[in-house]
Protein backbone atom coordinates (compact mmCIF):
# COMPACT_ATOMS: atom_id res chain seq x y z
CA UNK A 1 0.00 0.00 0.00
CA UNK A 2 2.76 2.37 0.92
CA UNK A 3 4.59 1.56 -2.27
CA UNK A 4 1.46 2.29 -4.23
CA UNK A 5 1.23 5.79 -2.81
CA UNK A 6 4.98 6.10 -3.12
CA UNK A 7 4.65 6.53 -6.88
CA UNK A 8 2.98 9.88 -6.26
CA UNK A 9 6.29 11.06 -4.85
CA UNK A 10 6.72 13.22 -1.85
CA UNK A 11 5.49 16.59 -0.71
CA UNK A 12 9.00 17.99 -0.50
CA UNK A 13 9.46 17.42 -4.24
CA UNK A 14 6.67 19.74 -5.21
CA UNK A 15 7.80 22.97 -3.59
CA UNK A 16 8.28 25.55 -6.32
CA UNK A 17 10.56 28.32 -5.11
CA UNK A 18 9.88 28.63 -1.41
CA UNK A 19 6.10 28.14 -1.55
CA UNK A 20 4.22 25.01 -0.55
CA UNK A 21 0.63 24.02 -1.42
CA UNK A 22 -2.31 23.87 0.97
CA UNK A 23 -1.63 20.25 1.93
CA UNK A 24 1.70 21.34 3.40
CA UNK A 25 -0.03 23.95 5.54
CA UNK A 26 -2.51 21.35 6.79
CA UNK A 27 0.36 19.04 7.80
CA UNK A 28 1.87 21.94 9.70
CA UNK A 29 -1.13 23.27 11.63
CA UNK A 30 -3.25 20.17 12.26
CA UNK A 31 -2.54 18.10 15.40
CA UNK A 32 -0.43 14.96 14.88
CA UNK A 33 -2.28 11.87 13.76
CA UNK A 34 -2.58 8.61 15.74
CA UNK A 35 0.35 6.25 15.19
CA UNK A 36 -1.35 3.82 12.80
CA UNK A 37 -2.20 6.64 10.37
CA UNK A 38 1.15 8.40 10.39
CA UNK A 39 2.31 6.56 7.30
CA UNK A 40 -0.49 8.09 5.29
CA UNK A 41 -0.37 11.59 6.70
CA UNK A 42 0.58 13.19 3.39
CA UNK A 43 -2.18 11.39 1.58
CA UNK A 44 -4.69 12.43 4.24
CA UNK A 45 -3.51 16.04 4.01
CA UNK A 46 -4.02 15.93 0.25
CA UNK A 47 -7.50 14.48 0.61
CA UNK A 48 -8.42 17.12 3.20
CA UNK A 49 -7.14 19.93 0.97
CA UNK A 50 -9.16 18.61 -1.97
CA UNK A 51 -12.15 18.09 0.32
CA UNK A 52 -12.05 21.73 1.37
CA UNK A 53 -12.18 22.84 -2.26
CA UNK A 54 -14.92 20.38 -3.23
CA UNK A 55 -16.89 21.65 -0.23
CA UNK A 56 -16.34 25.37 -0.78
CA UNK A 57 -16.63 25.70 -4.57
CA UNK A 58 -20.33 24.62 -4.75
CA UNK A 59 -21.06 27.33 -2.17
CA UNK A 60 -19.80 30.04 -4.55
CA UNK A 61 -22.87 29.75 -6.83
CA UNK A 62 -25.13 30.07 -3.76
CA UNK A 63 -23.70 33.55 -3.23
CA UNK A 64 -23.35 34.48 -6.89
CA UNK A 65 -26.91 33.56 -7.89
CA UNK A 66 -28.28 35.77 -5.13
CA UNK A 67 -25.81 38.51 -6.08
CA UNK A 68 -26.91 38.27 -9.70
CA UNK A 69 -30.58 38.61 -8.74
CA UNK A 70 -29.87 41.53 -6.45
CA UNK A 71 -27.65 43.30 -9.00
CA UNK A 72 -30.24 42.84 -11.73
CA UNK A 73 -32.92 44.08 -9.34
CA UNK A 74 -31.03 47.25 -8.49
CA UNK A 75 -30.19 47.91 -12.14
CA UNK A 76 -33.87 47.57 -13.02
CA UNK A 77 -35.02 49.58 -9.99
CA UNK A 78 -36.58 46.64 -8.12
CA UNK A 79 -35.73 45.12 -4.74
CA UNK A 80 -35.11 41.52 -5.84
CA UNK A 81 -35.86 38.56 -3.56
CA UNK A 82 -36.91 39.87 -0.13
CA UNK A 83 -39.05 37.17 1.52
CA UNK A 84 -36.70 34.33 2.50
CA UNK A 85 -34.49 35.42 5.37
CA UNK A 86 -33.41 39.03 5.99
CA UNK A 87 -33.21 40.89 2.63
CA UNK A 88 -33.81 37.55 0.93
CA UNK A 89 -30.32 36.22 1.56
CA UNK A 90 -31.56 32.64 1.98
CA UNK A 91 -33.41 32.66 -1.36
CA UNK A 92 -30.88 30.54 -3.26
CA UNK A 93 -30.73 28.01 -0.45
CA UNK A 94 -34.52 27.71 -0.54
CA UNK A 95 -34.42 27.30 -4.33
CA UNK A 96 -31.79 24.60 -3.95
CA UNK A 97 -33.88 22.67 -1.46
CA UNK A 98 -36.91 23.02 -3.72
CA UNK A 99 -34.97 21.64 -6.68
CA UNK A 100 -33.78 18.74 -4.53
CA UNK A 101 -37.39 17.69 -4.01
CA UNK A 102 -38.40 18.07 -7.66
CA UNK A 103 -38.95 15.13 -9.94
CA UNK A 104 -36.17 14.81 -12.46
CA UNK A 105 -37.35 13.45 -15.76
CA UNK A 106 -35.15 11.40 -18.02
CA UNK A 107 -36.42 11.47 -21.59
CA UNK A 108 -37.20 7.83 -22.45
CA UNK A 109 -36.31 8.16 -26.13
CA UNK A 110 -32.97 9.85 -25.55
CA UNK A 111 -29.64 8.30 -24.71
CA UNK A 112 -30.14 7.58 -21.02
CA UNK A 113 -26.50 6.83 -20.17
CA UNK A 114 -25.11 10.00 -21.74
CA UNK A 115 -27.98 11.99 -20.24
CA UNK A 116 -26.96 10.87 -16.74
CA UNK A 117 -23.24 11.23 -17.42
CA UNK A 118 -23.30 14.84 -18.69
CA UNK A 119 -23.77 16.62 -15.30
CA UNK A 120 -20.93 14.56 -13.82
CA UNK A 121 -18.52 15.66 -16.53
CA UNK A 122 -19.51 19.31 -16.44
CA UNK A 123 -19.35 19.62 -12.63
CA UNK A 124 -16.15 17.58 -12.23
CA UNK A 125 -14.20 19.53 -14.80
CA UNK A 126 -15.39 22.93 -13.69
CA UNK A 127 -14.17 21.92 -10.20
CA UNK A 128 -10.89 20.73 -11.68
CA UNK A 129 -10.09 24.22 -12.98
CA UNK A 130 -9.86 25.39 -9.35
CA UNK A 131 -6.94 23.04 -8.64
CA UNK A 132 -4.27 25.33 -10.04
CA UNK A 133 -5.56 28.75 -8.93
CA UNK A 134 -3.62 30.32 -6.02
CA UNK A 135 -6.10 32.00 -3.68
CA UNK A 136 -3.68 33.59 -1.26
CA UNK A 137 -0.68 32.86 0.89
CA UNK A 138 0.40 32.78 4.50
CA UNK A 139 3.91 32.92 5.92
CA UNK A 140 4.71 30.49 8.74
CA UNK A 141 8.29 30.66 9.93
CA UNK A 142 10.49 30.93 6.86
CA UNK A 143 8.14 28.89 4.68
CA UNK A 144 5.43 30.34 2.51
CA UNK A 145 2.22 28.32 2.21
CA UNK A 146 -0.02 29.09 -0.75
CA UNK A 147 -3.75 28.36 -0.76
CA UNK A 148 -3.59 26.19 -3.83
CA UNK A 149 -4.49 22.53 -4.11
CA UNK A 150 -1.64 21.67 -6.38
CA UNK A 151 1.12 23.92 -7.63
CA UNK A 152 1.27 22.39 -11.12
CA UNK A 153 4.30 23.48 -13.12
CA UNK A 154 2.13 23.73 -16.24
CA UNK A 155 -0.68 25.45 -14.28
CA UNK A 156 -2.26 27.77 -16.84
CA UNK A 157 -1.91 25.26 -19.65
CA UNK A 158 -3.66 22.67 -17.49
CA UNK A 159 -6.51 25.10 -16.84
CA UNK A 160 -6.92 25.70 -20.59
CA UNK A 161 -7.02 21.96 -21.20
CA UNK A 162 -9.45 21.14 -18.43
CA UNK A 163 -11.87 23.94 -19.19
CA UNK A 164 -12.26 22.73 -22.77
CA UNK A 165 -13.46 19.30 -21.59
CA UNK A 166 -16.68 21.01 -20.45
CA UNK A 167 -17.63 21.33 -24.13
CA UNK A 168 -17.85 17.53 -24.33
CA UNK A 169 -20.28 17.50 -21.41
CA UNK A 170 -22.44 20.12 -23.12
CA UNK A 171 -22.54 18.21 -26.41
CA UNK A 172 -23.40 15.03 -24.49
CA UNK A 173 -26.26 16.76 -22.71
CA UNK A 174 -27.60 18.21 -25.93
CA UNK A 175 -27.34 15.01 -27.94
CA UNK A 176 -28.76 12.75 -25.26
CA UNK A 177 -31.80 14.92 -24.52
CA UNK A 178 -33.65 13.96 -27.69
CA UNK A 179 -34.93 17.47 -28.15
CA UNK A 180 -34.30 19.81 -31.05
CA UNK A 181 -33.77 22.78 -28.77
CA UNK A 182 -31.11 20.92 -26.81
CA UNK A 183 -29.29 19.73 -29.90
CA UNK A 184 -29.18 23.18 -31.51
CA UNK A 185 -28.27 24.83 -28.21
CA UNK A 186 -25.43 22.45 -27.51
CA UNK A 187 -23.99 22.79 -31.02
CA UNK A 188 -24.08 26.55 -30.81
CA UNK A 189 -22.55 26.42 -27.39
CA UNK A 190 -19.76 24.16 -28.60
CA UNK A 191 -19.03 26.31 -31.66
CA UNK A 192 -18.92 29.41 -29.48
CA UNK A 193 -16.76 27.90 -26.76
CA UNK A 194 -14.17 26.42 -29.10
CA UNK A 195 -14.01 29.61 -31.16
CA UNK A 196 -13.39 31.84 -28.17
CA UNK A 197 -10.79 29.47 -26.79
CA UNK A 198 -8.34 30.76 -29.40
CA UNK A 199 -8.34 34.42 -28.30
CA UNK A 200 -8.14 33.19 -24.69
CA UNK A 201 -5.11 31.03 -25.45
CA UNK A 202 -3.37 33.76 -27.42
CA UNK A 203 -3.91 36.43 -24.75
CA UNK A 204 -2.57 34.03 -22.14
CA UNK A 205 0.45 33.52 -24.39
CA UNK A 206 1.23 37.23 -24.41
CA UNK A 207 1.41 37.04 -20.61
CA UNK A 208 3.55 33.91 -20.70
CA UNK A 209 6.09 35.66 -22.95
CA UNK A 210 6.59 38.29 -20.25
CA UNK A 211 6.76 36.02 -17.20
CA UNK A 212 8.30 32.95 -18.87
CA UNK A 213 6.63 30.45 -16.59
CA UNK A 214 3.41 28.46 -16.82
CA UNK A 215 3.18 27.98 -13.07
CA UNK A 216 0.29 29.99 -11.61
CA UNK A 217 2.06 30.77 -8.35
CA UNK A 218 5.14 31.72 -10.38
CA UNK A 219 3.05 34.20 -12.35
CA UNK A 220 1.73 35.74 -9.11
CA UNK A 221 5.25 35.92 -7.65
CA UNK A 222 6.35 38.15 -10.52
CA UNK A 223 3.68 40.72 -9.69
CA UNK A 224 4.73 41.44 -6.12
CA UNK A 225 6.07 44.95 -6.76
CA UNK A 226 2.79 46.80 -6.29
CA UNK A 227 0.25 48.15 -8.75
CA UNK A 228 2.69 48.99 -11.55
CA UNK A 229 4.11 45.46 -11.58
CA UNK A 230 0.74 43.89 -12.41
CA UNK A 231 1.04 42.19 -15.75
CA UNK A 232 -1.71 44.28 -17.30
CA UNK A 233 0.61 47.32 -17.18
CA UNK A 234 3.87 45.64 -18.23
CA UNK A 235 3.49 46.35 -21.94
CA UNK A 236 0.77 48.28 -23.80
CA UNK A 237 -0.08 45.03 -25.56
CA UNK A 238 -0.84 43.13 -22.37
CA UNK A 239 -3.27 45.94 -21.59
CA UNK A 240 -5.12 45.07 -24.79
CA UNK A 241 -4.71 41.36 -24.04
CA UNK A 242 -6.58 41.77 -20.75
CA UNK A 243 -9.65 43.11 -22.54
CA UNK A 244 -9.46 40.44 -25.23
CA UNK A 245 -9.21 37.83 -22.49
CA UNK A 246 -12.13 39.26 -20.52
CA UNK A 247 -14.44 39.53 -23.54
CA UNK A 248 -13.59 35.97 -24.59
CA UNK A 249 -14.03 34.77 -21.01
CA UNK A 250 -17.58 36.14 -21.00
CA UNK A 251 -18.22 34.21 -24.21
CA UNK A 252 -16.54 31.07 -22.80
CA UNK A 253 -18.96 30.92 -19.88
CA UNK A 254 -21.93 31.64 -22.19
CA UNK A 255 -23.13 34.82 -20.61
CA UNK A 256 -24.96 37.79 -22.09
CA UNK A 257 -24.22 39.39 -24.55
CA UNK A 258 -22.90 36.04 -25.76
CA UNK A 259 -25.58 33.77 -24.27
CA UNK A 260 -26.88 32.51 -27.61
CA UNK A 261 -26.82 28.87 -26.46
CA UNK A 262 -29.45 29.80 -23.90
CA UNK A 263 -31.32 32.40 -25.90
CA UNK A 264 -34.78 32.08 -24.38
CA UNK A 265 -36.49 33.74 -27.30
CA UNK A 266 -35.33 31.16 -29.82
CA UNK A 267 -33.93 28.06 -28.08
CA UNK A 268 -36.00 27.87 -24.86
CA UNK A 269 -33.06 27.02 -22.55
CA UNK A 270 -30.39 25.64 -24.83
CA UNK A 271 -28.66 22.39 -24.00
CA UNK A 272 -30.40 21.90 -20.65
CA UNK A 273 -33.97 22.24 -21.92
CA UNK A 274 -34.83 18.67 -20.95
CA UNK A 275 -33.06 18.70 -17.60
CA UNK A 276 -35.09 19.25 -14.47
CA UNK A 277 -34.76 19.03 -10.71
CA UNK A 278 -31.35 18.44 -9.21
CA UNK A 279 -29.66 17.73 -12.54
CA UNK A 280 -30.60 21.21 -13.70
CA UNK A 281 -29.31 22.65 -10.43
CA UNK A 282 -25.96 20.95 -11.04
CA UNK A 283 -25.65 22.66 -14.43
CA UNK A 284 -26.39 25.93 -12.71
CA UNK A 285 -23.71 25.29 -10.08
CA UNK A 286 -21.17 24.49 -12.79
CA UNK A 287 -22.08 27.61 -14.74
CA UNK A 288 -21.56 29.97 -11.82
CA UNK A 289 -18.45 28.13 -10.61
CA UNK A 290 -17.02 28.56 -14.12
CA UNK A 291 -17.82 32.23 -14.06
CA UNK A 292 -15.92 32.61 -10.78
CA UNK A 293 -13.05 30.52 -12.15
CA UNK A 294 -12.50 32.60 -15.30
CA UNK A 295 -12.59 35.81 -13.25
CA UNK A 296 -10.08 34.31 -10.81
CA UNK A 297 -7.83 33.38 -13.74
CA UNK A 298 -8.10 36.90 -15.16
CA UNK A 299 -7.13 38.30 -11.76
CA UNK A 300 -4.19 35.91 -11.43
CA UNK A 301 -2.85 36.57 -14.90
CA UNK A 302 -3.37 40.30 -15.23
CA UNK A 303 -4.39 41.94 -11.96
CA UNK A 304 -1.70 40.75 -9.60
CA UNK A 305 -3.35 37.62 -8.20
CA UNK A 306 -3.35 37.80 -4.42
CA UNK A 307 -0.62 40.47 -4.37
CA UNK A 308 -1.56 43.83 -2.93
CA UNK A 309 -1.62 47.29 -4.48
CA UNK A 310 1.53 48.51 -2.74
CA UNK A 311 4.76 46.54 -2.33
CA UNK A 312 5.17 45.18 1.19
CA UNK A 313 1.89 46.61 2.48
CA UNK A 314 -1.09 44.30 2.50
CA UNK A 315 -3.78 46.47 0.95
CA UNK A 316 -6.03 44.51 -1.39
CA UNK A 317 -3.71 41.55 -0.95
CA UNK A 318 -3.93 38.02 0.38
CA UNK A 319 -7.08 35.92 0.30
CA UNK A 320 -9.54 38.81 0.97
CA UNK A 321 -7.91 40.96 -1.69
CA UNK A 322 -8.03 38.14 -4.22
CA UNK A 323 -11.70 37.44 -3.52
CA UNK A 324 -12.46 41.17 -3.72
CA UNK A 325 -10.79 41.56 -7.12
CA UNK A 326 -12.46 38.41 -8.45
CA UNK A 327 -15.89 39.44 -7.21
CA UNK A 328 -15.38 42.85 -8.79
CA UNK A 329 -14.81 41.20 -12.18
CA UNK A 330 -17.85 38.97 -11.56
CA UNK A 331 -19.83 42.12 -10.82
CA UNK A 332 -18.64 43.63 -14.11
CA UNK A 333 -19.90 40.50 -15.89
CA UNK A 334 -23.31 40.86 -14.22
CA UNK A 335 -23.36 44.57 -15.03
CA UNK A 336 -22.70 43.77 -18.70
CA UNK A 337 -25.38 41.09 -18.65
CA UNK A 338 -28.08 43.44 -17.46
CA UNK A 339 -26.98 46.31 -19.70
CA UNK A 340 -26.33 44.92 -23.16
CA UNK A 341 -28.71 43.10 -25.51
CA UNK A 342 -27.86 39.72 -27.00
CA UNK A 343 -25.81 39.44 -30.20
CA UNK A 344 -26.85 37.49 -33.29
CA UNK A 345 -24.99 34.29 -34.17
CA UNK A 346 -23.21 35.79 -37.17
CA UNK A 347 -22.19 38.86 -35.14
CA UNK A 348 -20.84 36.56 -32.45
CA UNK A 349 -18.71 34.57 -34.87
CA UNK A 350 -17.57 37.73 -36.68
CA UNK A 351 -16.42 39.28 -33.42
CA UNK A 352 -14.32 36.24 -32.61
CA UNK A 353 -12.80 35.35 -35.99
CA UNK A 354 -12.53 38.75 -37.61
CA UNK A 355 -11.66 40.97 -34.66
CA UNK A 356 -10.45 39.18 -31.55
CA UNK A 357 -8.19 36.60 -33.23
CA UNK A 358 -6.33 39.04 -35.52
CA UNK A 359 -6.02 41.47 -32.60
CA UNK A 360 -4.55 38.81 -30.33
CA UNK A 361 -2.04 37.72 -33.00
CA UNK A 362 -1.07 41.36 -33.36
CA UNK A 363 -0.68 41.43 -29.56
CA UNK A 364 1.78 38.56 -29.52
CA UNK A 365 3.91 40.11 -32.24
CA UNK A 366 3.62 43.44 -30.42
CA UNK A 367 4.83 42.01 -27.13
CA UNK A 368 7.72 40.34 -28.96
CA UNK A 369 8.79 43.58 -30.64
CA UNK A 370 8.35 45.53 -27.40
CA UNK A 371 10.62 43.12 -25.55
CA UNK A 372 13.19 43.24 -28.34
CA UNK A 373 13.28 47.04 -28.34
CA UNK A 374 12.94 47.88 -24.63
CA UNK A 375 14.79 44.90 -23.17
CA UNK A 376 13.59 41.53 -21.95
CA UNK A 377 13.13 42.61 -18.33
CA UNK A 378 9.73 44.26 -18.37
CA UNK A 379 10.00 45.29 -14.72
CA UNK A 380 12.96 47.49 -15.64
CA UNK A 381 12.07 51.20 -15.70
CA UNK A 382 13.48 51.41 -19.24
CA UNK A 383 10.60 49.20 -20.41
CA UNK A 384 7.93 49.86 -17.80
CA UNK A 385 8.11 53.65 -18.07
CA UNK A 386 7.26 53.91 -21.80
CA UNK A 387 4.59 51.23 -21.29
CA UNK A 388 2.81 53.21 -18.57
CA UNK A 389 3.05 56.40 -20.64
CA UNK A 390 1.56 54.69 -23.71
CA UNK A 391 -1.26 53.13 -21.67
CA UNK A 392 -2.17 56.40 -19.98
CA UNK A 393 -2.22 58.29 -23.29
CA UNK A 394 -4.27 55.55 -24.99
CA UNK A 395 -6.83 55.45 -22.17
CA UNK A 396 -7.05 59.24 -22.20
CA UNK A 397 -7.68 59.37 -25.97
CA UNK A 398 -10.21 56.54 -25.70
CA UNK A 399 -12.13 58.20 -22.88
CA UNK A 400 -12.14 61.49 -24.76
CA UNK A 401 -13.62 59.74 -27.81
CA UNK A 402 -16.22 57.97 -25.67
CA UNK A 403 -17.37 61.13 -23.92
CA UNK A 404 -17.39 63.04 -27.18
CA UNK A 405 -19.70 60.36 -28.56
CA UNK A 406 -21.96 60.47 -25.51
CA UNK A 407 -22.47 64.22 -25.55
CA UNK A 408 -22.95 64.06 -29.33
CA UNK A 409 -25.79 61.55 -29.09
CA UNK A 410 -27.39 63.54 -26.31
CA UNK A 411 -27.48 66.62 -28.47
CA UNK A 412 -29.19 64.68 -31.23
CA UNK A 413 -31.90 63.28 -28.97
CA UNK A 414 -32.70 66.57 -27.26
CA UNK A 415 -35.93 67.86 -28.78
CA UNK A 416 -35.55 71.21 -30.48
CA UNK A 417 -37.71 73.78 -28.72
CA UNK A 418 -40.10 75.31 -31.17
CA UNK A 419 -40.26 79.05 -30.91
Amino acid sequence: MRQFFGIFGNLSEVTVGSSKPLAGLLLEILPPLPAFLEEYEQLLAMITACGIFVGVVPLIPLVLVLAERKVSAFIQDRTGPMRVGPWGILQTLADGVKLLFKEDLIPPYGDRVLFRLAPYIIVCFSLAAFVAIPFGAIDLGDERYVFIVSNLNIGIFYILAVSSVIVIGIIMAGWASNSKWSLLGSLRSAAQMVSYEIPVGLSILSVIMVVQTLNMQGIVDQQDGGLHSWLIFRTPFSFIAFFVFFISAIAEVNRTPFDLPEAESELVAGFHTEYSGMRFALFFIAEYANMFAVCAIAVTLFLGGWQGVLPGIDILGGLPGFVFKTLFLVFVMMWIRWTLPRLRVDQLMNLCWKYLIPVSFFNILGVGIWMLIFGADTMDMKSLGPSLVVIVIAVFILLKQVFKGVSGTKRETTPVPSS
Partner: protein
Amino acid sequence: MLFNFANVLLILIGGFVFVAINLILSRFLQTRLPSIEKEMPYECGEEPIGDTRIKFNTRFYVIALIFLIFDVEIVFLFPWGVVFRKLIEDGAGILAFGEMFVFILILLVGLAYVWAKGDLEWIRSIQSVQEEKT
Protein backbone atom coordinates in the same frame (compact mmCIF):
# COMPACT_ATOMS: atom_id res chain seq x y z
CA MET B 1 5.41 15.53 -10.44
CA LEU B 2 2.85 12.78 -10.17
CA PHE B 3 2.08 13.99 -6.67
CA ASN B 4 0.68 17.19 -8.16
CA PHE B 5 -1.56 15.37 -10.59
CA ALA B 6 -2.78 13.03 -7.84
CA ASN B 7 -4.51 16.14 -6.48
CA VAL B 8 -6.30 16.59 -9.79
CA LEU B 9 -7.48 12.99 -9.63
CA LEU B 10 -8.70 13.53 -6.06
CA ILE B 11 -10.63 16.67 -7.08
CA LEU B 12 -12.26 14.79 -9.96
CA ILE B 13 -13.26 11.98 -7.59
CA GLY B 14 -14.50 14.60 -5.13
CA GLY B 15 -16.62 16.24 -7.81
CA PHE B 16 -18.02 12.87 -8.85
CA VAL B 17 -18.96 12.05 -5.25
CA PHE B 18 -20.54 15.49 -4.82
CA VAL B 19 -22.76 15.02 -7.87
CA ALA B 20 -23.60 11.43 -6.90
CA ILE B 21 -24.63 12.39 -3.35
CA ASN B 22 -26.86 15.16 -4.65
CA LEU B 23 -28.55 12.97 -7.23
CA ILE B 24 -29.04 10.03 -4.85
CA LEU B 25 -30.46 12.35 -2.18
CA SER B 26 -32.76 13.87 -4.75
CA ARG B 27 -33.81 10.38 -5.95
CA PHE B 28 -35.05 9.46 -2.47
CA LEU B 29 -36.76 12.78 -1.78
CA GLN B 30 -38.70 13.13 -5.00
CA THR B 31 -41.95 11.59 -6.12
CA ARG B 32 -41.99 10.15 -9.60
CA LEU B 33 -45.22 10.20 -11.51
CA PRO B 34 -44.34 9.56 -15.16
CA SER B 35 -46.94 10.20 -17.83
CA ILE B 36 -46.86 10.20 -21.62
CA GLU B 37 -47.17 13.97 -21.85
CA LYS B 38 -44.31 14.50 -19.41
CA GLU B 39 -41.98 12.22 -21.31
CA MET B 40 -42.53 13.86 -24.65
CA PRO B 41 -39.65 16.03 -25.92
CA TYR B 42 -40.39 19.66 -25.23
CA GLU B 43 -41.37 21.57 -28.32
CA CYS B 44 -43.23 24.47 -26.80
CA GLY B 45 -46.34 22.43 -26.12
CA GLU B 46 -46.81 21.23 -29.68
CA GLU B 47 -46.70 17.60 -30.75
CA PRO B 48 -43.08 16.86 -31.74
CA ILE B 49 -42.65 16.80 -35.51
CA GLY B 50 -40.17 14.50 -37.24
CA ASP B 51 -36.89 13.10 -36.08
CA THR B 52 -34.97 14.91 -33.34
CA ARG B 53 -31.58 14.31 -34.90
CA ILE B 54 -32.12 16.97 -37.49
CA LYS B 55 -29.64 18.05 -40.13
CA PHE B 56 -27.75 21.03 -38.87
CA ASN B 57 -25.67 23.72 -40.47
CA THR B 58 -22.34 22.53 -41.92
CA ARG B 59 -20.81 25.75 -40.57
CA PHE B 60 -20.30 23.91 -37.30
CA TYR B 61 -17.93 21.44 -38.96
CA VAL B 62 -16.00 24.20 -40.69
CA ILE B 63 -15.63 26.14 -37.44
CA ALA B 64 -14.48 22.98 -35.64
CA LEU B 65 -11.85 22.32 -38.31
CA ILE B 66 -10.48 25.87 -38.26
CA PHE B 67 -10.47 25.74 -34.48
CA LEU B 68 -8.42 22.55 -34.54
CA ILE B 69 -5.73 24.14 -36.70
CA PHE B 70 -5.45 27.23 -34.52
CA ASP B 71 -5.52 25.26 -31.29
CA VAL B 72 -2.64 23.07 -32.41
CA GLU B 73 -0.83 26.24 -33.35
CA ILE B 74 -1.29 27.64 -29.85
CA VAL B 75 0.18 24.44 -28.45
CA PHE B 76 3.27 25.05 -30.61
CA LEU B 77 3.48 28.69 -29.55
CA PHE B 78 3.47 28.03 -25.80
CA PRO B 79 6.98 26.49 -25.46
CA TRP B 80 8.36 29.34 -27.55
CA GLY B 81 6.61 31.87 -25.30
CA VAL B 82 8.10 30.31 -22.19
CA VAL B 83 11.71 30.53 -23.38
CA PHE B 84 11.42 33.76 -25.39
CA ARG B 85 12.80 36.06 -22.69
CA LYS B 86 15.72 33.74 -22.04
CA LEU B 87 16.53 33.72 -25.76
CA ILE B 88 16.56 37.53 -25.83
CA GLU B 89 18.93 37.57 -22.87
CA ASP B 90 21.16 35.08 -24.68
CA GLY B 91 21.26 37.38 -27.69
CA ALA B 92 19.16 35.18 -29.96
CA GLY B 93 16.06 37.32 -29.61
CA ILE B 94 15.75 38.54 -33.19
CA LEU B 95 16.26 35.04 -34.60
CA ALA B 96 13.63 33.57 -32.22
CA PHE B 97 11.19 36.33 -33.03
CA GLY B 98 11.83 36.05 -36.76
CA GLU B 99 11.16 32.33 -36.80
CA MET B 100 7.94 32.69 -34.87
CA PHE B 101 6.95 35.62 -37.07
CA VAL B 102 7.21 33.39 -40.12
CA PHE B 103 5.22 30.64 -38.37
CA ILE B 104 2.45 33.04 -37.37
CA LEU B 105 2.49 34.61 -40.83
CA ILE B 106 1.86 31.23 -42.49
CA LEU B 107 -1.15 30.68 -40.26
CA LEU B 108 -2.41 34.20 -40.78
CA VAL B 109 -2.28 33.55 -44.52
CA GLY B 110 -4.48 30.52 -43.78
CA LEU B 111 -6.92 32.70 -41.84
CA ALA B 112 -6.92 35.25 -44.65
CA TYR B 113 -7.65 32.49 -47.17
CA VAL B 114 -10.59 31.16 -45.14
CA TRP B 115 -11.82 34.73 -44.70
CA ALA B 116 -11.57 35.51 -48.41
CA LYS B 117 -13.34 32.25 -49.29
CA GLY B 118 -16.21 33.40 -47.09
CA ASP B 119 -16.08 30.48 -44.68
CA LEU B 120 -16.06 32.81 -41.70
CA GLU B 121 -19.46 34.19 -42.71
CA TRP B 122 -22.12 32.49 -40.65
CA ILE B 123 -24.88 33.41 -43.04
CA ARG B 124 -24.03 32.74 -46.68
CA SER B 125 -26.36 33.79 -49.38
CA ILE B 126 -27.40 31.11 -51.89
CA GLN B 127 -25.94 33.31 -54.61
CA SER B 128 -22.43 33.26 -53.16
CA VAL B 129 -22.51 29.46 -52.81
CA GLN B 130 -23.63 29.10 -56.42
CA GLU B 131 -20.93 31.46 -57.61
CA GLU B 132 -18.39 29.30 -55.87
CA LYS B 133 -19.63 26.15 -57.60
CA THR B 134 -19.31 27.62 -61.06
